[in-house]
């Protein structure tokens, strides 16, 4: 029996950075061994990969991969599954059916889903990718988006949120740009002192949830440049709020001044932003204000978000679908994706009101209500195009699809007998006045609370718990810890909105007083965070939670 070795080259689909990813497959008879390879010739990453890219073989070889359709957690065959879906769909009118999708789809598959909805005359089509970074799809018309060369050549860089944590590969061009000249500046804004803080020339440590207020203060401090873009009226409104803003976000006026002077005086720069699950009160406001700051600043400033435009905007928001389910208007839901609903346990009570729920999935999962789960290949096994931050790239399969799975386009073909395609939209614009009003309202209604803010924390290394399972670690400030008499590695209970979870305390000064962070890489802790519906976009907002700490004696 001979040993065959083959190198499969493709693009990493786990985030939008678009790293080159290769897998070396060695097979001897039925035995196959896969190892990740690092392609030095890859133009974006030169072989560098984060922990998620390194986990590619874990996804391909995972024993929990779903290999046959499940009806109420029992295995059925594909013929039964398709015929059952066909007959069940007939019992609902098109208005009672909703379709959702997420980022486990290529552009071609998204077009097919869109065509499927058109064929069945279904209007309720929404994206079920509920991570806060989806709000980067709502932008300003004048924002210039950065190319990779812009980051390399930037003289001033402002980072908002934990960009290195979720997209570590972007750190190389950023640090190269910073170290290229001693006068180059790196500024960082976040509510948690993450690893980027050690590299920043100035770190603005905002109180939890107040990052939008900090950005508003920076916009006002830009002075004339801001006045031209946002108009006199808006500018005056914000100027009156200024003393209040820096106090609310807990950042000294002098620090704000240093950052804005750096941003104003150095012409060539990039502003990067990222958001974590359960860390931002108003992700739409944060994403719009970061983009507004880019427009306001003079010189050649560009915007970059490693999560931008990952999933096209639906005809309606996911919040509309939730409302419709509660009102009994939507009775059937078909989901083409792999995260929802398994990664959003807080939505399960709502979904149990549905009469028909069909979802695709990569992994074997259980749901506590009537459902049908269809196995699909992961993006690593698909051929198609995806959009990355820099370009549109062609995905090539890194391995044969897992046996028993069917690609979404084939499922749709079998359901409708044909494959229609229509083009989805990726971005939508928001007016400047709307952003300013929202910001002013946010500042006016912002209330300090005595309760502890519970923030979510994500990282590439913790991704889905493949390498690190720190879902029971709770990070707490030493002052807060002494207030509750908590010591390192003590068992603590966290009470949020009637829900209770046990954690092991880790005392660190990387979080502020009365703030704690918990990992949200795996679904375990995600149900602690409250879900709100944004009134403007009707998207889902998963905000920081307010909770109580109890020491377990």
């Amino acid at each position, binding site marked *: 029996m001979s040993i065959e070795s083959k190198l499969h080259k493709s693009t990493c689909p786990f985030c939008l950075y678009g790293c080159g990813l290769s897998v070396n497959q060695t097979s001897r008879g039925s035995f196959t061994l896969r*190892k*990740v390879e*690092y392609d*030095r010739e890859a133009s974006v990453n030169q*072989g*560098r*990969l*984060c*922990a998620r*890219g*390194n*986990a590619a*073989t*874990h996804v391909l070889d995972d024993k929990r991969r779903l290999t046959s359709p499940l009806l109420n957690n029992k295995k059925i065959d594909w013929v039964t599954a398709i015929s059952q879906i066909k007959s069940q769909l007939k019992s609902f009118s098109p208005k009672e059916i909703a379709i959702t999708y997420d980022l486990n789809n290529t552009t071609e598959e998204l077009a097919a889903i869109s065509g499927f909805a058109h064929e069945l005359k279904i209007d309720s089509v929404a994206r079920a990718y509920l991570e806060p970074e989806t709000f980067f799809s709502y932008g300003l018309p004048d924002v210039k988006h950065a190319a990779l060369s812009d980051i390399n050549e930037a003289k001033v860089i402002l980072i908002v949120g934990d960009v*290195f*944590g979720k997209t*570590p*590969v972007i*750190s*190389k061009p950023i*640090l190269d740009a910073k*170290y290229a000249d001693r006068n180059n500046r790196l500024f960082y804004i976040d509510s948690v*002192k993450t*690893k*980027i*803080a*050690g*590299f920043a*020339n100035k770190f603005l440590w905002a109180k939890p949830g107040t990052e939008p207020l900090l950005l508003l203060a920076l916009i006002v401090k830009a002075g004339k440049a801001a006045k031209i873009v946002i108009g006199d009226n808006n500018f005056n409104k914000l100027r009156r709020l200024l003393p209040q803003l820096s106090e609310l976000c807990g950042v000294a006026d002098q620090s704000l001044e240093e950052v804005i002077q750096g941003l104003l005086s150095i012409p060539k720069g990039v502003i990067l932003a990222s958001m974590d699950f359960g860390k931002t009160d108003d992700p739409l406001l944060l994403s719009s204000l970061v983009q507004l700051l880019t427009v306001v600043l003079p010189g050649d400033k560009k915007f970059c978000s490693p999560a931008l435009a990952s999933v096209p905007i639906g005809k309606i928001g996911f919040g509309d679908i939730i409302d419709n389910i509660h009102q009994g208007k939507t009775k059937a839901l078909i989901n083409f994706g792999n995260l929802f609903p398994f990664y959003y346990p807080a939505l399960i009570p709502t979904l149990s009101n549905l009469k028909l729920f069909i979802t695709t999935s990569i992994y074997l999962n259980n749901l506590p209500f009537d459902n049908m789960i269809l196995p699909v290949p992961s993006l690593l096994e698909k051929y198609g195009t995806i959009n990355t931050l820099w370009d549109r790239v062609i995905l090539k399969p890194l391995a044969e699809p897992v046996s028993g799975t069917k690609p979404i386009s084939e499922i749709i073909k079998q359901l409708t007998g044909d494959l229609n395609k229509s083009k989805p939209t990726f971005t939508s614009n928001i007016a400047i006045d709307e952003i300013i009003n929202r910001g002013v309202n946010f500042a006016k209604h912002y209330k300090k609370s005595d309760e502890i803010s519970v923030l979510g924390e994500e*990282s*590439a*290394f913790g991704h889905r718990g493949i*390498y*690190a399972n720190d879902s029971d670690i709770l990070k707490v400030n030493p002052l807060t810890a002494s207030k509750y008499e908590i010591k390192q590695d003590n068992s603590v209970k966290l009470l949020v909105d009637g829900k209770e979870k046990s954690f092991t305390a880790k005392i*660190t*000064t*990387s979080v502020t007083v009365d703030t704690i962070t918990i990992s949200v890489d795996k679904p375990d802790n995600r149900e602690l965070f409250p879900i709100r519906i944004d009134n403007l976009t009707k998207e889902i907002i998963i905000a920081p939670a307010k909770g109580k700490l109890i020491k377990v004696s």
Partner: protein
Amino acid sequence: MENNQKRIFLDLDYCIGCRSCEAACRSAFEESRIRYGDISETTFLPIACRHCDEPVCAAACPFEVLKVTDQGLVLQASFHCVGCKSCIIACPFGVLDKSLLHHVSQKCNLCKDREDGPRCVASCASGALKLLTEKEAKKVVVGKRFVSRSPFWRRT
């Protein structure tokens, strides 16, 4: 260490603590052979095997499982390892992990199965880990901004 022998060097100016090195090692060998520690909240230290000239781990091994090759690498003949953990206790840098995988201690072999060098170096997301000879390492500025310019452990 002879002049043409390459070893893993760390540039503290670049390490962002993303642990890609650990993930790369674990993805290839099940368990990570590169250790990782936080010096402070914003300073990180991946610890790779130094392949010492006079390896204490090899001296401590009762069954001569660890040996220095002609190329100066300290390699382990895993088949003969009995999992006595002597090498783990002996390593002065704490590189060898306490936990055994399949009853065998996990020892870095600089990915000798791979032509392009160690996986941790190739994978390093920020380019902090470098595979250099001693001569090259002296020329490259490693952690200069970090160590020399700031008394507060910050990169200026």
